[in-house]
């Protein structure tokens, strides 16, 4: 009885910090489970980079060398970037666009869920799947491609690529706020695939046409792939700091765009 009384009269119901932490963890847990069980997501995000890697790095060209680095090693860095980008974009953008367009995000916003928990969960999802993709690439490369990498180098590669998922998660949020629920996957691909090609994630950078190589310098995936390549010893000897700066600036821009979309949603949705 007294609890019910307290519930009726207490106007300052607080959630403790540990309670908030629980919410964030649960939100992330269920976001992960939700996507893991989505065959389409898991299959495409993980399978495509692995398939390309197996085909171009293990079956063909396995004995080739690019600028002093073995192909299987080189391609872990580039397809790793490709995989991380895909995991982040598809993890955030299509889910967000669908949730927005079809009313589910409204249900969550009407609830006491802290909005930040929703976005954090999506970012965490991107990072987890990015880690999975890169780890699997490493496993394949080491088992079948003769890749030799000291443990420290592997850890740095994994860490860099997973950190690199953040800019693309931010990009995904920006796209998700402006795409429609059905057109989001197509919109993502329209951006993702050309960006990947022009950044040297498929055809290695040095084999790209000159114009494309110049364009690449402005593209975030190029910078992430160069960071990864630098770790495996195949970089172009550029300053790592520059790459990180570009990625950081890109993240801020995307978050700004996402925020505009967030504000816009307040007035837009028609009842």
């Amino acid at each position: 009885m007294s609890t019910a009384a307290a519930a009726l009269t207490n106007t300052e119901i607080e959630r403790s910090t540990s309670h908030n932490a629980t919410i964030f963890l649960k939100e992330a847990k269920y976001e992960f489970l939700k996507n893991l069980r989505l065959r389409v997501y898991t299959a495409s995000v993980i399978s495509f980079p692995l398939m390309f890697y197996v085909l171009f790095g293990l079956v063909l060209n396995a004995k080739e060398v690019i600028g002093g680095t073995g192909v299987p090693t080189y391609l872990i860095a580039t397809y790793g970037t490709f995989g991380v980008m895909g995991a982040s974009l598809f993890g955030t953008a299509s889910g967000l666009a669908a949730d927005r367009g079809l009313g589910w995000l409204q249900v969550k916003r009407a609830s006491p869920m802290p909005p930040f928990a929703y976005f954090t969960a999506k970012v965490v999802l991107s990072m987890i799947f990015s880690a999975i993709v890169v780890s699997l690439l490493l496993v394949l490369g080491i088992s079948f491609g003769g890749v030799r990498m000291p443990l420290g180098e592997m850890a740095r590669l994994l860490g860099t690529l997973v950190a690199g998922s953040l800019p693309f998660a931010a990009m995904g949020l920006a796209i998700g706020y402006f795409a429609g629920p059905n057109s989001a996957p197509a919109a993502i691909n329209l951006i993702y695939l050309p960006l990947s090609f022009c950044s040297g994630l498929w055809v290695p950078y040095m084999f790209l046409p000159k114009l494309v190589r110049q364009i690449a310098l402005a593209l975030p995936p190029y910078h992430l792939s160069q960071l990864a390549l630098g770790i495996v010893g195949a970089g172009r000897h550029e300053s790592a700091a520059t790459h990180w700066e570009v990625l950081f600036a890109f993240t801020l821009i995307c978050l700004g765009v996402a925020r505009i979309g967030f504000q816009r949603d307040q007035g837009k949705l028609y009842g």
Partner: protein
Amino acid sequence: MICPASQTKAEKTKMIATLEETPSLQRASYGSVVASLEGISKNYGEVRALRNVNFTVGAGQVVALLGPNGAGKTTAVKLLLGLLQPSSGKARVFGGDPTNPHNRMRAGAMLQVGRVPETLRVREHIDLFSSYYPRPLPLEEVLAAAGLEKLRDRKFGDLSGGQRQRTLFALAICGDPDLLFLDEPTVGLDVEARRALWEEIRRLVERGKTVLLTTHYLQEADALADRIAVINQGAIIAEGTPAEIKAQTSGKRIRCVTTLGLASLLQIPGVTDAKQDREAVEIRTSEAESVVRALLARDASLSGLEITSAGLEDAFLALTQDNGENANRQN
């Protein structure tokens, strides 16, 4: 409640009486208006979804916002949930801003949605939503209230339409909210499921909850609501108890199978309207007895005679038609 065995019967009776009094006293102490729209207008570009609406929901009541599709019901609910900002006026929940998390922690909402994550199980959805609230109901209780005990492990995508509605209802009540928003809660449910949900809503109200429900099912408003606000084209055109709303159109309906034509029926004094309804005719009048006498006198072969009060449906149609005409005349 543990009562010491040594208490006399009189003492126990007094204690129970005090306990029964307490909830309503405390409801009154924080103010009896739980949600309100004050001078609310909401425009989407040129469309005026709500026009200077004033509306309150009192503690412990079931208030139904009744209106046809596009009337502005969902817009009103979204304003009270803080999902939309008004173009002018104020929306208040528990005396404060609807976007305040403290107020959201005391409210639950069932909205019409096009998509719910399909790969999560029923109990996982409820677990997640329950975690947002400081004092949620136990999972078993929520499942029982929504009739979902057997479906706890089913993925949302494998549920039927009615089961999905019940899951959304579960998400609305799982936080044990004081104020419940139900936007068209029984759309798509069969009769049995609808009745079950009504029962559950009544049980919630008995425990002291406040419910704002929107519907275009007149029967639902009549069955559940203490107060009905009829809304059409963005304005509230009538407000009162179901009986008061029904009283706004006086009159009875007479239904019978007769050889008399519509034209001659309209000639009978007291008849305000007559129309064909398959094999019978339907006559509106406020003087049922004299009209029936006249009918029986003019047509000895008359059969299938039924006399009913104008239901809520007639009241509603009359109100919205009048309102529509007025609106057109103003434009």
